[in-house]
Each structure stands twice: as structure tokens, then as C-alpha cells.
């Protein structure tokens, strides 16, 4: 055993040693789950999180998989505590939990939790969360237009899959009979179990090597450290109240009725509050955000990105909730960001992303070098499904990417997962070999241009998926009506859109950003265009060479180069006409 901490305080050298061990364990847990799993949403998209927690639900370590999962597990653990079967933990238990009113991020993200006992005492937990394809909700894969939380499918609250090491066969049987993709669901739960078992083994090895007291002291210190980092960064923001407002398209049922999102950031010294008062009331559909497991997680993530940007600072931030301590989140009960039971709260991703986008906008006046222009700040989450020849369902969940807003020193990245999302797409070829679907187009969007600016917005994606059997599509997306904004004289980006082309009459249906259980026929094709990001800074400041590059690469037209950027090109020779450009830009500046 290693030396015990002096006065309970570990020196920074030893702390670094334990920190490395923590991070390795979390990544190993995530790796097993990711590699073993069957459904594409876990295995390709890596929509999962994994880690170790102490008996008070503090994070010891957590994998860096998908931001939406990071920091969400402690809320699950608190929810389990309130609902636990038998009322207590036994060695060898494994619990499944997903109840949105007991701390879950949303119901498809099942948590698998294993208690860890050492010398007869509960000392912590190994846990992970993963998004499952189908838990038997009202429509296959995803839901939006549903009446309440009971339409979300199976709700687990502190249920034991294993009790004292023995499988609870009734529960396993129940699960097998209540999903359209039962085989994958069960196999993926088994992968989650393999991952928490590994976590338990590693945790005990760590405790054997360094003692429980030392391990827990290390995690407490690492949390204080992360908190210190965040506080120093918040203290650098001028005190004050900063506000921004945006609109969500609709609730997925009541068309044309936009929903306001209001963000007030109050900075006081080294702490801050994000107040969402003024945002829309809770919706009658599934378009609500669980407060503990999603709203708060999104706000914390916003400040990690903004203040502890991992690409800008060379000091890595430990993955624990220490950095959340200086941040308070307020959302009135009964609002879209804090719904009241039994409202459904499954379709919550796009609201989280808009929240982050608006926090950046609110702080733009005082942090011009750190914020970025408006991003797509949505997601496209599509559930395609149909019946196989054997009468069983096939269900496929697809996450489509967005685009970033222009940035103080660089263009917004194109066609890439945005803000809270960070998943991987499914190889088109793998898909076509295994499902009755075929991708017809997957490219950068070229029907509209990204927001112009000294640094342009990112370009969204266009993806066309053709169904090769009759079936259903449910689609959760946003920003068909409220384009990503430009910043500091940058131009606005472009809204997203979605169409379904009918195989029979070739008619094109223009779809709302969210629709549920749309019936489609074989050969029908859905095409999704994600929003383009807004520009940062005046287009007249963009380097003419970059404008030429954009035109040659098809990111900008000759007309836009001339009219918006004031750049005149000789396309035959593929060069900038320098003198004509100077004259054009002088003229444009004199007009403003």
C-alpha cells in the first residue's frame, strides 16, 4: 500500500498519479461498452458515458465520450437512491434506471449501476449510460407528439437486473417483450454490464493499491481543483447581467407557434447564475427538458466550452462536477426546461443546444474574443423503421450533424456535430449492406451559403435517405424558422429544412422540423438540410485569397464574392483581381 495522505491532503505529484489511473479506468469502461455494443447509436455514434462514483454520488472519474452524458450520472444515482428496489444495496446487485422524474437525462438513456463493496461496506459505484434504440415508446425509436411520460415506453426506477449476483429473470423477460429492437436492447444492456463489472474490478484494484481513504481524498481534491479553475475564469468576466432571446420552431404538434427561450446570465465575482425564466411554459408534447439530467448538464457544458476550452488551454480539466459548483441554474417549475410530472420529456436535445448558443450570444458583448457566432445549435435525430420479412421491426436511429458559427480567428467548422452533440455517423456502406435503406446524397449543403463574415459560418449537411420498405419516420430537429445569427457585422446563417419526396407522385412534402410517426412508402426519400452557421466580423475584412478559395471550392458564388465580400475574381486564371477588389471594397465602405 502507498503512503497515506498527510493531514488528508495529497501532494500534487501523488494526486497526478491517481488522476491518471482514474482517467484510464473511465476510458477503459467506455471502450468496452463502445466496442461490444450492437446498436449503431452506441457503437458508431458513441452515445454513452461511463465512470466511477463515490457513495455520496460524487464523480471519481468519467469517460470523455459524448458531452450530453458527461455529468449526468450523479443525478441518476440520486434518483436511484429514492426509488431503489429492496430499499438497499447488496453486493452483486446491478440496477437499471431511466426515469426522467428521478434524475435521468431522458428515458432512452438507460443507466446501468453496480454498487462496489469493500470489506463489507458500500464505498461507491461503477455506472454507465447509453442511448438505446427502442424501449417500447409510442412510436419506433423516437417520440415527440405524445401525451405524457407513460408514452415513453419502459420506465425503470431503481430496478434490479441482478440481486446479490442472481439475475432477476422476470425483469429480463419483461424487457425482452417490450421493445421493437429487443435483441439489440438486451445485448447492449449486457455490454453495459460488462463495462460496469470491469469498472468495479478496477476500482477495487485502486483501493487495494492506494487505500480507500487516499482514493477518496484524491477525488475530493481533484474536484476542488476543477472548481478553482472554473472560478478563476468566471472572475475574469465583468460582473453584470447578460441576456439573449431566441425562438424554437414549435412543440411538434401546434404548428406555427414558436416557443421563446430566454437566457439571463448573472455574473457575480467568481460565480454565476443562468436563469431561464421567461422561456416557454412546458409543452403538451415530449418536447421538454428534464431539469436535473439535461438542463443543468447543458449549462455546465456551455461554460466548460466557453471558459475551459480544451483546444486553447494546455491544462486538461478533470472530468468531475467540481467545475459545476460555481454555476447555479434556475428554471421555473412548469417551464420547458423544468417540466412537471407527468409531462413527457424525451425530445430534449435541440433545446439544450439552443440554450448553449444563447448563453454565448448573451456574453458576446463582454467576451468578443471567446464567443462564436450563432451555430446550427440543433440536431437532426431521425428514427427510420419498418417491418422485416419475418414480421419483426427494424429501427435505425441517425444523428445528423450541424455547423458552427464563425469564430474570432477562424471559420466555423462545416458539417460536424454541434455543441452538446459529438457522435460519429454511420458508414453509408455498412448501413446499405444491413438495412432496407439507401443513402442517395451526403454532401455539404449548396442550396444556400453560410453566413458571410471575416470568418464565415460553417456549412451544414444535406443527407438524403431512401426507404426500401414501407415504414415510419420520426424526426427531431430545430431551427427551420430562426436562423443562426451573425456576430459583430457578420451575416446571419441559414435555417434548416427537411423534405420527403414521394415515390409515387414525385411530390415533395415540406416537413416541419419535428414530426412523429410519419408513414412512408418504399422508395420514399427524406432529405435533411442542416442550418448554416452565422458569420463573425465584417465580410469586407475577409482576406480576398480566402474568398477566392471559397468560390473555387463552391462555398461562395462569384456574385456573393462581389456583392457581399467586395472581392473581384478572375475565375479563368483562378486569381483575385487585386485592384478591382480594392476599388470595390472602398466603394462599399463609403456606402456604409
Amino acid at each position, binding site marked *: 500500500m502507498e503512503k497515506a495522505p498527510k493531514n488528508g491532503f495529497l501532494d*500534487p505529484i501523488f494526486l*497526478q498519479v491517481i488522476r*491518471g489511473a482514474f482517467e484510464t479506468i473511465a476510458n477503459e469502461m467506455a471502450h*468496452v461498452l463502445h466496442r461490444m455494443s450492437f446498436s449503431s447509436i452506441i457503437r458508431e455514434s458513441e452515445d454513452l458515458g461511463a465512470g466511477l462514483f463515490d457513495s455520496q454520488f460524487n464523480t471519481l472519474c468519467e469517460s470523455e465520450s459524448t458531452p450530453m452524458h458527461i455529468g449526468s450520472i450523479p443525478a441518476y444515482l440520486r434518483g436511484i437512491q429514492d426509488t431503489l428496489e429492496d430499499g438497499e444495496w447488496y453486493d452483486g446487485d446491478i440496477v437499471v434506471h431511466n426515469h426522467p422524474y428521478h434524475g435521468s437525462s431522458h428515458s432512452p438513456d438507460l443507466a446501468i449501476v453496480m454498487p462496489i463493496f469493500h470489506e463489507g461496506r458500500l464505498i461507491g459505484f461503477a455506472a454507465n449510460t447509453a442511448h438505446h434504440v427502442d424501449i417500447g415508446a409510442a412510436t419506433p425509436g423516437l417520440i415527440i407528439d405524445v401525451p405524457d411520460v407513460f408514452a415513453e415506453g419502459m420506465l425503470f426506477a431503481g430496478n434490479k437486473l441482478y440481486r446479490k449476483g442472481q439475475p432477476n429473470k422476470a425483469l429480463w423477460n419483461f424487457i425482452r417483450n417490450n421493445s421493437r429492437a429487443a435483441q439489440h436492447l438486451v445485448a447492449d444492456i449486457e455490454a453495459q454490464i460488462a463495462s460496469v463489472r470491469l469498472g468495479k474490478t478496477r476500482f477495487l484494484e485502486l483501493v487495494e493499491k492506494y487505500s480507500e481513504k487516499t482514493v477518496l481524498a484524491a477525488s475530493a481534491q481533484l474536484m476542488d481543483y476543477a472548481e478553482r479553475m472554473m472560478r478563476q475564469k468566471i472572475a475574469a468576466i465583468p460582473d453584470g447581467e447578460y441576456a439573449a432571446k431566441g425562438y424554437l420552431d414549435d412543440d411538434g404538434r401546434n404548428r406555427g407557434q414558436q416557443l421563446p427561450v430566454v437566457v439571463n446570465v448573472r455574473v457575480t465575482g467568481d460565480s454565476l447564475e443562468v436563469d431561464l425564466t421567461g422561456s416557454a411554459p412546458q409543452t403538451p408534447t415530449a418536447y421538454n427538458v428534464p431539469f436535473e439530467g439535461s438542463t443543468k448538464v447543458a449549462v455546465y457544458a456551455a461554460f466548460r466550452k466557453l471558459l475551459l476550452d*480544451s483546444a486553447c488551454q494546455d491544462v486538461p480539466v478533470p472530468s468531475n462536477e467540481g467545475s459545476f459548483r460555481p454555476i447555479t441554474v434556475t428554471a421555473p417549475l412548469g417551464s420547458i426546461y423544468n417540466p412537471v410530472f407527468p409531462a413527457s420529456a424525451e425530445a430534449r436535445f435541440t433545446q439544450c443546444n439552443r440554450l448553449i448558443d444563447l448563453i454565448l450570444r448573451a456574453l458576446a458583448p463582454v467576451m468578443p474574443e471567446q464567443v462564436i457566432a450563432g451555430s446550427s445549435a440543433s440536431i437532426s435525430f431521425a428514427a427510420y423503421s419498418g417491418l422485416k420479412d419475418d414480421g419483426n421491426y427494424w429501427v435505425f436511429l441517425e444523428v445528423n450533424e450541424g455547423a458552427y458559427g464563425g469564430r474570432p480567428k*477562424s471559420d466555423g467548422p462545416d458539417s460536424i456535430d454541434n455543441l452538446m452533440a459529438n*457522435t460519429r455517423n454511420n458508414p*453509408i*456502406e455498412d448501413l446499405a449492406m444491413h438495412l432496407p435503406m439507401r443513402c442517395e446524397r*451526403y454532401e455539404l449543403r449548396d442550396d444556400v451559403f453560410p453566413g458571410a463574415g471575416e470568418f464565415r459560418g460553417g456549412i451544414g449537411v444535406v443527407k438524403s435517405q431512401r426507404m426500401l420498405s414501407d415504414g415510419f419516420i420520426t424526426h427531431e430537429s430545430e431551427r427551420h424558422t430562426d436562423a443562426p445569427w451573425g456576430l459583430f457585422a457578420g451575416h446571419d446563417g441559414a435555417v434548416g429544412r427537411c423534405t420527403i419526396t414521394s415515390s409515387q407522385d414525385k411530390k415533395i412534402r415540406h416537413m416541419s422540423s419535428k414530426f412523429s410517426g410519419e408513414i412512408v412508402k418504399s422508395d420514399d426519400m427524406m432529405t435533411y438540410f442542416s442550418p448554416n452557421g452565422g458569420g463573425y466580423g465584417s465580410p469586407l475584412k475577409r482576406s480576398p485569397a480566402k474568398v477566392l478559395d471559397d468560390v473555387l471550392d463552391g462555398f461562395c458564388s462569384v456574385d456573393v464574392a462581389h456583392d457581399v465580400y467586395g472581392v473581384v475574381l478572375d475565375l479563368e486564371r483562378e486569381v483575385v483581381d487585386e485592384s478591382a477588389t480594392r476599388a470595390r471594397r472602398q466603394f462599399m465602405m463609403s456606402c456604409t
Partner: protein
Amino acid sequence: MARIGVDVGGTNTDLVLECHQGVFYHKLPTTLEDQSIGVIEGILTLCEQAGIRVEEVDTLLHGTTTATNITIEHNGAECGMLTTDGFRDILHIGRHKRPHNFSLHFDVPWQSRPLVRRRNRIPIMERISPPTGEIETPLDEAAVRQACALFRKRGIRAVVIGFLFSFLNDAHEVRAREIVLEEMPGIFVSISSEISNTMREYERFSTAAMNSYVGPPTSFYLRRLQKGLEAANIKARLRIMQSNGGVASVEACCERPVNILMSGPAGGVMGGLWEGAAADISNIITVDIGGTSADIAAIVNGEVKVKNPRDTEVGGYPVMAPMIDLVTIGAGGGSIARVDEFGAFHVGPNSAGSMPGPACYGRGGVEPTVTDAHIVLGRLDPDKALNGRLALRRDLAEKAILEKIAQPLGISAQEAALGIIRVIDNNMALAIRSTTVARGLDPREFAVMPFGGAGPLHGVALAEAVGAPEVIVPVAPGITAAVGLLRTGVQYEHVEPVLVMLPAQSADAVERLDGAAKRLKSNLLSDLSSLGEENATYDITFFAECRYAGQGFELRVPLENDLISSNSAGNLLKDFHAIHHQDYGYSYPDAPVEVVSLRATGKIPPQQEEARELPLPDEQGIARAFLYSKQTVFDNGQSLETPRYDRTRLCRGEQVRGPALLIQQDATTLVPPEYAAEMLSRGGTRLKRCAI
């Protein structure tokens, strides 16, 4: 008959010559502007040393960072690409995952520095239809010719052809290449179905694009080297180290330079493999510690492990070329230690490099590094390190550690130096765990083999941290990669996509597997026979890449031979369950298994050369090698009067008890108290805990 191994790294070019007169080493600075200058100069010097004529060198084995450097410096060829209409931006979108979770200002390398710019990615009407591979839309040949006209106008130097589903049917890619070569005779062309014949469009296209990107400059270098050798009257046949731990002909590497992106580190692992064999040890963890990074690999049962193709990337671009499974971490002699603004302590990944280098170099570096810590602890003697070429400054090392670490943390310089070593050792130990424990291997069954000049200072600490029972220090730790080249045989590899479910439902499924295996074999035989090596024996091994139906990642399962019967398909199924269980600690015995591809490697074993034996000891014993004694601080903080020995003067079977330092030209081996160093018959040194 003489053979030369030459390993060109970022700083040094290392050479080793083996002939009947003996073994000769030489090291010279890498000629960065053109590696071949240093290579040829080194060969001439070595031959002179050995007293042989250059014509006597019959084989030259070469590890090169040329291709790697192109990817780092982003100065590859301007490429044009032909791709399926509707899918122009596969290379731009990638897998749509960001390199950072929590960042707004991140860079996306495949977008900011694309292998092929969008203007040169030309969509072509054509369509191969899944899952059968039949042609649905014929290739628009006129459009291909039009694209070539544009490429000519733009001065494009290499072309990539990547069509969807070409792994099912390569007819369009092959035809498009014919047209390109008609339109642009002599241009460098890569087609995706040939470079990486597997499912998954982004990875396949990216691999082909990388091949074209590094192709022209890499083959330019290799050809120039060949000419330079001829001009110098060096008639040796030239073999190039590939990332997979085998060498190939210059022609093969010019065609597929994507196979030599990890040429450099592969030599080290092969060196470790051979040194292990010389010490009769078949389970080895090699730790190659350089100035800025450490490469860590596991050798299991005398074989190097190959990376899962899903994990192979270079500089953020996926490259599905066979590569030795090694982990590189930012831990080396130049790794900088610091206390961050929030109070945490870090070592690496930032490095002082060789300019300015560690503080003790006296070249203006003020940041404390791992090398500085060794100096302060008395583990490196300032006048002996770096072969005495550079007098190191202990005062500067101490000052840097005192000011940047000790004072901010309120500890002594010695404690701070020990802390630096402890954290860097821990980082390496975690990386060792990730290549062993996390993959179902138990480090207690392995020996740690540290090399690189600084490696043997860390060997024992690493072995202790991971529970490995012993450390084997190779004969010449500073030049292990070059030695490894001498022990490396030819290796080629081919892959055939075949999607087949197991248990095999039909005779057809078994036949398809069998057919693929036969094609692999015949391709390999034609590769190997084209090398013109007389009396060579060919060693061909087959693997199936399998997954449970529905999974996204395959595992590699060995096959006995190319004769696939329903019986061997059954064994394959059984083996897959077992391998899955070993890798993940779990298997699904009832789930159907899908074969995704068959892969085969063809090898010509390296020339077997018996390692030279150390002389037997005389009556003088180890006193013969004694240099002097000095204070040295060990990991537990104890400072002991520690004797130094000249490692090259120790004889077979001799034992040196710790505490001791074994010093040789470019490496120092640390033998802590309670450890003993034993000189093995073939020159390696075993460090083991000993009874007191």
C-alpha cells in the same frame, strides 16, 4: 556478404553493419533536407570502419520518416479526386465527430488541411448497387476525361479514385484509372478498392487519398536514394521498413507509401522482438523512450500485435494500413514539468525537444525536464551523457527544477526531481496498462524492455509499476531500431471483403470464404515471387475479421490455412467467441457471427543470424568494468554511494548488484538497490529483484 540496417529519425541517423568481421555501429545527425545524403554518408563511413568494400553490402534495410514527415508538415502532393456523384464531401465530413468535446475554437484537420481540396474533388455519375455489387449506373467516362482536363490545368500531381461500394465491385474504379492514365500518362493514381479493399467509405477514401498525398514525394525520395546508392557503387538490394513490422521492395513502397507511415517506430519494436528472442523471452513490453515521446508495444508469444484497422490513423486522418499496435505518449527525456496556474502538477506532453532542449543542455532552455531530473538525482552523469558530446550543466538543471517546481510546491529540489520521474513513469505505466491489461494481457507474464538512450533509466520503475517480473536491457539501447531492421523479414498483406454469416447456412457461404482465401494466397505468392529472393521460404497466414452480427467493430481470428471447409468455419466461430471473451471479458455464445473480411500476410522470414556471445569472464571479475562511484538518489528518496560500470566491459554471466549504474556510449542503465543486473550470454542485461 554484409547487411546494413539504417534507421533515420528526426534527430539522428543510426546505422548498424553486420559482416563476418563483426558488428559495427554508427550514428550521425539526420540530413533533414534530404535523408538519403546522411544514409549514404553513413554507409560509406561504416564500410570503412569495418574494412569492407561497399560492393560487399548485399542488403540494405531502411526505416524512414520521410512519409510521416509529409503528413506532419502537410507538404504532400496536390491531389485530384474522382468520387461518386452525390458524395463529394465524404473526405470533408469524415465521421462528423469533433476532435474535442469541450471547445469552441478547435481545429478540424481534415477540413482545415484537406488531403484533397473540394475544388479538386470531382463528382462522377456512376453507381454500384449494394448488397450485390451490380452496376446500376454505368461510369460516365466523358466526365472522367473532363475532370482530367481540369486536373491538367491545375497542375495536379496525384489522383485518388474513390467510388461508393467499390469493395463489392471495383470495375468502375479500375476503368476510371485506365482513363486517367490515358489522359495523364505517368500520373500517380490510387484507387480505393486496391489500397484498402474494405467496407466503410470514409476510411477507405481517406486511406487512398493519403496514399496519393504522400505518394509522389515519397517515391521521389526512395528513387533518389536508389540512384544515390548506385552512384556510390552500393549494389545492395534496398528494403524499406513498413508500419506492419515487415520490409518490402522499393517498388511496392512507391506504389503504396501509405504502408510506411509508421516505418520509424516499427523498427524499434522489431529490435525488441529480436533482443527478446536472444534472451529467450517471448512476452515483451517494448518501451522506446525518445526526446519527446515514448512508443509502447506488446510482443505476445514472440509475435508483434497488429492494430485493429478501425483504430489506425495518422495525424487525425484515418489510414487503414496494417500497423504494429503501439501506443505513443508524450513522455520523453525532453518532457517539460510544470505547475499550472490552478496548482496541479504535470509532466509532458510538451517537450523542450532538442532545441533548446532540457535546461542542462545550456542552450537557453529554462523549463525543467525529465533529463534535468535525472541529472539532479545523479542518475545521469553530466560528463558521460550523450557520449560526452555535450557537457551537461547540473547547475542549470537544478535551477530550473528549484524555481519552476520545488519553490512553488514548497518542496526540495530532490523531492521535485523525484516527483517528475514518478509522474512520467506513471504516465508510461498507464500506457503499458492500456496496451496489456485493457486488452486482456497480464503484464505479470511479460518482461519490460526499455530502450532509446533514456529507456534503461526507467526500466525497473516501469516493471514495478505494472507488476512485470523482470527487465531486459538490449545490447545497444540507443540503436535498437537499426538493429531491429537487420532482423526484419519481408511482409506483404492483402484483404478481401466477404460478408458471410456464421454458422454458415449454405455451401455457398463456405465457398465464398474459400474463394477469397485462394485469391489472397495467389496475390501474395505473386508479390513474394516478384522479389527475386533465391531459396526463400514463404510463410502465409490467414485471418478472418469477424464481429457479432450487428456490432460495429471486428476482431481478428486466425485461420489455419486457405482451405475453408464447413469444419474450419465452425472452428472459426468457436475461436471468435473465445477471442471476444478475452478482449472484452464477455461473449454472446448464442449470437450469430458475421465475417466481414479475410486478410492474409505473406512473409519471407529474415536471415537467421546468431547473436554474438559475450566473452567469458576473467578472474578480475566486474572490477574490470568499474569506473567510479558517486551519490545517486533512488525512488524511495535514499541517496547512496553508487558505483558506475562500463557496461561494454562486463562479461557473460556476470552479476552487478544494485545500487549501480551501467554506462555505455549512449545509454545508462539504472540498477536500484535490491536489484541485480545479470549479463546474458548474447549481450542483453537482465534486471531482477534479488534476495538480500
